[in-house]
């Protein structure tokens, strides 16, 4: 099968995205340089709303890890972290990030930073994995700053009141500790407003992703993985809300004018697992060349927290952050996936088994076979990694992907 080179229709919103992201980093840089605001480091699905409501500028090391992956720098830094005792088998966001720090290098230096912004406090949530605690602990020890954690139980099947109350109480317990560092006291009304903005941003992000239900889809996963930046790092701010209004309007306009993301959409795929950040662009072209649009993904859908409710900000935050896909049992995950396959008219599923991220690889405990037994949608498993490109065998994967597309085409 010869795949033609077909260009993916470029989203005009990318200019607004660039400005939104640049402005975010400018705010962080100014806070670093002037000390006008305290800086909190937060995990990507951590309590960002609480931190923003208390006046912190919030920095997300996972975003930095993705940046290192996408800029193909991770391979340069991972060995340094490994040499310092961090296994190559653990999260490659972590090893790339710590390795870069040890080499005193960061892509942020191009934006005027001397180094990554120095934290005044670090706050993590283990809802995604426990490695984030070890990751943040490295920096807490290095910078001698406080570290706070929300310890969420893994493998949540049913979201019971005891789990919700437990997490809500952990969120509340953060407040007095954060107040010791923050320049302003906790204000419930400000927290409500941040949660409201977060909810609004998440709803807009969900609507963005849902435009891909349309045939042909106006957006693909490889674009979404880039455009998800604001919902990850500016959740709870007006900036994210403003940006997603722009993006949503463009996508709705595309639907109205029948403009598709790829030139010819014949197959619709679902992507499970992390993106291969270092292959985002080539993957995008590869699928477009085979008239295949990856329309939905577990990864991008993970930032839809529409349970957030300003009326009850602590409890609703607990619900939202415990409903997160990655923290659920395989049965609960399967229910989510079954619905997504129907909603997005999926022809096939690709499971990316990321060598260093077991928690984001949903093909390790038989879920792929159970789902296939139920909905008969063919699937393909590819081995790779989010940042460590040494774990990805491109030629082998290309043969598998091409064969899979042929297999699906013959079923149409």
């Amino acid at each position: 099968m010869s795949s033609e080179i077909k260009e993916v229709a470029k989203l005009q919103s990318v200019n607004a995205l660039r400005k939104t992201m640049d402005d975010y980093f400018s705010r962080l840089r100014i806070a670093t340089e002037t000390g006008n605001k305290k800086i909190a480091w937060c995990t990507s699905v951590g309590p960002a709303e609480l931190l923003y409501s208390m006046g912190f500028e919030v920095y997300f090391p996972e975003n930095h890890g993705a940046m290192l992956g996408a800029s193909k720098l991770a391979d340069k830094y991972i060995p340094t972290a490994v040499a310092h005792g961090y296994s190559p088998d653990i999260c490659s966001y972590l090893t790339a990030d710590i390795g870069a720090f040890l080499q005193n290098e960061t892509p942020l230096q191009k934006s005027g930073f001397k180094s990554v912004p120095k934290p005044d406090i670090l706050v993590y949530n283990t809802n995604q994995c426990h490695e984030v605690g070890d990751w943040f602990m490295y920096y807490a020890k290095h910078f001698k700053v406080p570290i706070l954690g929300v310890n969420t139980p893994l493998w949540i099947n049913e979201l019971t009141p005891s789990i919700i109350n437990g997490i809500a109480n952990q969120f509340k317990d953060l407040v007095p500790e954060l107040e010791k560092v923050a320049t302003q006291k906790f204000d419930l009304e400000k927290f409500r407003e941040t949660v409201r903005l977060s909810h609004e941003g998440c709803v807009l992000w969900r609507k963005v992703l849902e435009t891909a239900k349309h045939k042909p889809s106006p957006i693909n996963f490889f674009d979404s993985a880039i455009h998800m930046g604001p919902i990850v790092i500016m959740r709870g701010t007006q900036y994210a809300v403003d940006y997603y209004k722009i993006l949503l309007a463009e996508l709705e306009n595309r639907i109205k004018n029948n403009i598709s993301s790829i030139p010819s959409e014949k197959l619709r795929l679902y992507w499970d697992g992390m993106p291969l950040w270092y292959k985002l662009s080539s993957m995008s072209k590869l699928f477009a060349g085979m008239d295949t649009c990856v329309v939905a993904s577990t990864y991008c859908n993970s930032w839809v927290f529409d349970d957030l409710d300003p009326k009850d900000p602590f409890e609703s935050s607990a619900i939202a952050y415990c409903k997160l896909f990655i923290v659920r049992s395989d049965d609960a995950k399967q229910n989510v996936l079954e619905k997504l396959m129907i909603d997005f008219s999926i022809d096939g599923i690709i499971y990316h088994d990321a060598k260093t991220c077991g928690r984001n690889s949903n093909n390790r405990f038989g879920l792929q076979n159970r789902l296939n037994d139920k909905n008969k949608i063919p699937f393909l498993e590819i081995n790779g990694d989010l940042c460590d490109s040494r774990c990805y065998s491109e030629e082998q994967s290309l043969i598998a992907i091409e064969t899979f597309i042929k297999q699906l085409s013959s079923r149409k």
Partner: protein
Amino acid sequence: MYRIGIDLGSSFTKGVLVDENNKIIDYHLTRTGFDFNKAAQKIIDKFSVDHEIQYPVFTCGYGREELKIPFVSNSEIIALAKAVFNHYNKKCSIIDIGGQDTKYVTVGETGQVDKFKMNRKCAAGTGSFIEEIAFRLDISAEEFTSFAKQATEETKINSYCTVFAVSEIVGMIKKGSTMPNIILGIYNSVIDRSVELSPVEDFLVITGGIPDNHPLIVDLFKKRFPKCDSPAKSQFLAAYGCVLLN
């Protein structure tokens, strides 16, 4: 006019010459090396001596898109399934053991690929595993088979890693294991890795360079899976399938 199918694999390039009745007239095998064009040209030159060749040629494998001559490329998995179904004309599962890849393919009642899986990014269970061990122990493929036939019991090889497997074997020799028993263990290790890809269903067909060059592996498969077969010259099937698909 004769058509050519070429499977440009990681270790070897396999070519078949096919007549108008879809019958294979000739086979040719050459090392792939680093130049796919050179490897393909060797195949074409060999077949061109006595036959008029029809272009494009039909390709699959790692170098399928790299040729400067006119070609039509195919998925080696779809091509393999086509050729195997053409041979047996029934639903089956295929385990193909090549130089870098081990593949499990399920072929449906009408010859369609129902599912497939490839080995993880690791040479364990592939031809490279045996090649590396043979090189390190200085044993030829023929010697491998004759040694294994003398085995009295299997010495189990545990290591996933090809390099560590060699260290493990050296340790076994030190402890008194015999070479025949060790080689039987190596063969079974290859089989163990391949059947990890999927539960074996239906009639099982073993293909690829490894079963062709190490026929005892096929016998060992048959011991485990009585409904099993391996066609002669099975490493040429994907090349043949390329022609049949077009």
